[in-house]
């Protein structure tokens, strides 16, 4: 396993000299590249090295650093190694290259990011509305969108709701209450 990983790191560094690699225990491997190299490095993985399975694409919101981080996870059924390919995009006007000509399922992932995070993909084809209908607020999955404040303003609330009670105190309080007759046969 370690030999395979060392071979991989050497191969990738020879084609992409700016990539940086991190080795983790077991079957995980990380690469960090610039965002323009993403289509070529993923094509490299898929066609040449045999990493044919795109497992997941996800996005992390680094609010303090002002960047989004996109992570692509690929897997090879022969080597059985998970490779995380990471890039950073700036947060103000994020534009990423489109990879749905390599794997078709990336189309769905990218439409979700366009709706939930506001990231634009060049040449992405698909309807504007993905899951939310008639949504005209900010992209909801960003960390600076306060969902509780938004929900308080838009919807009616029923008064008298108590939240964030301590579980142990409540259990003690309720175990001292009177059990009604019909529930006696179910209590311990």
């Amino acid at each position: 396993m370690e030999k395979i990983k060392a071979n991989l790191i050497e191969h990738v560094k020879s084609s992409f000299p700016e990539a940086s690699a991190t080795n983790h225990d077991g079957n995980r491997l990380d690469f960090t590249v610039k965002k323009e190299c993403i289509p070529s490095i993923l094509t490299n993985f898929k066609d040449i090295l045999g990493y044919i399975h795109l497992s997941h694409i996800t996005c992390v919101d680094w609010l303090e650093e002002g960047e989004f981080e996109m992570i692509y996870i690929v897997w090879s059924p022969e080597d059985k190694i998970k490779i995380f390919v990471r890039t950073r995009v700036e947060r103000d006007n994020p534009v990423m290259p489109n990879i749905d000509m390599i794997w078709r399922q990336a189309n769905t992932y990218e439409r979700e990011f366009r709706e939930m995070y506001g990231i634009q993909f060049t040449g992405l084809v698909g309807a504007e509305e993905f899951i939310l209908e008639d949504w005209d607020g900010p992209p909801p999955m960003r960390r600076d969108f306060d969902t509780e404040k938004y929900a308080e303003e838009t919807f009616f609330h029923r008064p008298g709701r108590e939240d964030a009670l301590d579980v142990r105190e409540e259990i003690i309080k309720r175990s001292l209450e009177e059990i009604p007759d019909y529930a006696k046969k179910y209590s311990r």
Partner: protein
Amino acid sequence: MIKMINDKNSQKIVDIIQNWSRKHSIWVLAYGTGCGAIEIPPTMTSRYDAERMGVRGAATPRQADVLLITGYLTTKTLKRVLRVYEQMQDPKYVIGFGSCTINGGMYYDSYNTIKVLDKYLPVDVYINGCMPRPEAVLAGFGKLQELIGEGKANGATKYKENLEWYRANQKKVIPTWKRPEYNW
């Protein structure tokens, strides 16, 4: 003879017979709107039989009596549920299932679900729990039967009389939707 037919006592007798027949035969629309719909099949099948109360599933809104709102309602589903509710024939009832219809439940801070169902649709009976067990569901149907028998399950007439208020509330969450004019 005409006086005998039109007086209040005979209207009361007709009401008693009609309410008795509506009480013992309730047809539930087979439409699961949220995650509470997973408690409906155990209630309707062999172990906690709901058919002995006369409750059975109906396929289309034109044939159904009761609309079960099981769980949370997003604004996207609310549009469809309103359309389904207005297609049903009087007298119709709405049962709110689970704590998400009462005060928002688990999704009280979500940007997309409605918190209080009562402002958008007239609700007759609430069943609380997350999810309520089949025994609780049967108790809810029993309460609905009691209300029908006394003639107090009037959600549909309340909707017709206060249509403007309900429409204003619905427009707040679904801003761009044209509704037809009704001539009830």
